[in-house]
């Protein structure tokens, strides 16, 4: 136990150092984001992530938003296990033919009003997978999309920025 405590104190808070450019940018985005979430979502924005056929690259970066460096929860956003509690669907793509029905059902299960953000080049345009027998292409081919976050994959800062843009 003493080792755990020691490691925790040694690590300290890694979230907020403002020295580098990246952190400054992160801080700026975060503060604005927090403000919007406080105003519009009563301090809590609940996100459900849906993988509609991505390569797992976008998922890793969405995961990274939760790590201690980006720590998106401090801005009032958190990820939920069920679409029924979600305000926002973060959908990565392209939409695989085999995932189309599941994606539609997830969308239908999310209570209105709801926001949908397409994440990654594949989610926005179909990317390198394009449109084929197995890939329907971009997310907006299947469900209505409010905003896009391009990138392959988008960095955690780009994701935070994109969510902010979609909210405001």
């Amino acid at each position, binding site marked *: 136990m003493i*080792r755990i405590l020691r*490691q925790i104190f040694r690590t300290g808070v890694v979230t907020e150092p403002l020295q580098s450019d990246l952190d400054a940018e992160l801080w700026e985005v975060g503060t604005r984001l927090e403000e919007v979430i406080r105003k519009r979502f009563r301090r809590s924005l609940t996100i459900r992530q849906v993988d509609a056929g991505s*390569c797992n690259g976008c998922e*890793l970066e969405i995961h990274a938003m939760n790590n201690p460096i980006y720590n998106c929860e401090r801005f009032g956003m958190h990820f939920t296990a069920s679409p029924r509690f979600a305000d926002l669907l973060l959908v990565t793509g392209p939409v695989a033919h*085999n995932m189309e029905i599941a994606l539609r059902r997830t969308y239908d299960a999310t209570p209105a009003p709801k926001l949908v953000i397409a994440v990654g080049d594949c989610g926005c345009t179909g*990317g390198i997978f394009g*449109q084929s027998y197995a890939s329907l292409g971009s997310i907006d081919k299947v469900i209505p999309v409010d905003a896009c976050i391009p990138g392959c994959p988008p*960095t955690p800062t780009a994701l935070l920025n994109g969510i902010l843009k979609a909210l405001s």
Partner: protein
Amino acid sequence: MSMLKEAIISVFGEEARFDEGQHPVSVSSCVVKRGRFAEAARVMKKAYALLAAEWAADETAFGRGFGIYACYRWGAEYLIVKTEVPSDDLRFPSLAKKFVPAFRFERQIQSLMGITPTGHPDTRPWIKFEDWPADAWPLRKTFDASKPMARVPGEYAWVRAEGEGVYEIPVGPVHAGIIEPGHFRFQALGEDVINLEARLGYVHKGIEKRFESLSWKDGALLAGRVSGDTTVAHSIAYCMALESMAGCSPPERAYWLRALFLERERIANHLGDIGAICNDAAFAFMIFQMSRLREMIVSTNQKLFGHRFIMDRVVPGGVTVDIDAAGKKEILTEMDMLSKDFERLVVIYDEHSSLEDRVRDTGILTPERARELCVVGVVARASGLNLDCRIFNPFPPFDQHHYLELDVPVLISGDVHARAWVRIQEVRESIRIIRKFLEDMPEGEIAVPVALPRPDISGFAAVEGWRGEIIYWLQSGPHSEVNRCMVRDPSSVNWLALELAVLGNIVPDFPLCNKSFNQSYSGHDL
């Protein structure tokens, strides 16, 4: 070192024709008659070989019908056995009774190419969903892949369990966490899992077919997106297979840089996995610590190589980014910091008894079973199978065994702890060899041009990604275009092992077992 080749020759003699068009020359490919395809498998089994992959190729463009390929591995040797199937009689003898992994490979061949494995115990489609039109065989040349597919009614025939107190838990395809989609169906009695059936294919994006419509160069981009977490290893495997066909040898420095990227990818993903395994045993402290270290690695990647996962930096003929003295120094400092923090965390992992209680003796894959299932990578090494392409099928600098002295951890307990511990050891080894790479990296060019491969030849490459061995097999068409690109992610063989490892465990331990395997959905579904 050609035990398998000799075994085939001793039984088949002159009848086994060796294909000169197979590259590199260290990997032999022989053609046997269709009636003796299963016999060849028996010979391989006797020679102690493992089945690495089995696939079909549409060779009608050459006027030949279809080819069924089975790739066997024993130690450092790979041998491909091919049989030809005429277009008017689309059947081949099943190998599923001799090699367990053929079970899914052949269902996939049946589903996507429409060639029937005779004697296969399971005729249900795999990856192809029941709502696809019955005659949709996307890998055939006659199939128009650009059009969307219609849906037809149909239902998957799940394995059922009945009896007093038996109940079913369906999970997915949309999971509770931030992970890829797939469906798992448990049959449980009380808390004990009595059967688990996975149904995958949800993220099938038609990758293998897509390769056929791309140029050789663009293929490398697609290979980097087969499984986003393994982008480096997939790109290397694709590029090496292509380079072997084109007769191109990248400069020494390019190989060393590839090795550096590969090991950085391994460290980043292993750190994530170790943290996630602990998190699934309710020890959240570790996931935050590990993801902090992981973030350090990927931000340095971004700074030095321009991409957090080093995507698209490996191209046919070499790499696109170099490293200078300042970059080397930065990585060395980073490795020192990583190593110090990592060792502290390993002690905590090791001493935490409540964690030990969860990870030990959970989700056991016995060495016998691992061998039967021909698993690869971390999963294999945690169950006593000493397999690692960095040792047995190395590219420079891994081929300099005396210089690197790479220590591959092999454990035999096959439980969650073993899989976590193999990862821990591998992180340590990767840190050590990254330091060596940086010290002794040769100077020179980082890329050379690659010519188009000649028509009707094939190329093979196996690379040890962080999950395990990744295999690419490429075939050029009559006009030197891509005729077929076969991708075998480690997940294609390892998923089945998870289904067996979880039997007899309690339902709440499934996430833990699953995390310790952490297989790719996208790499499997293609």
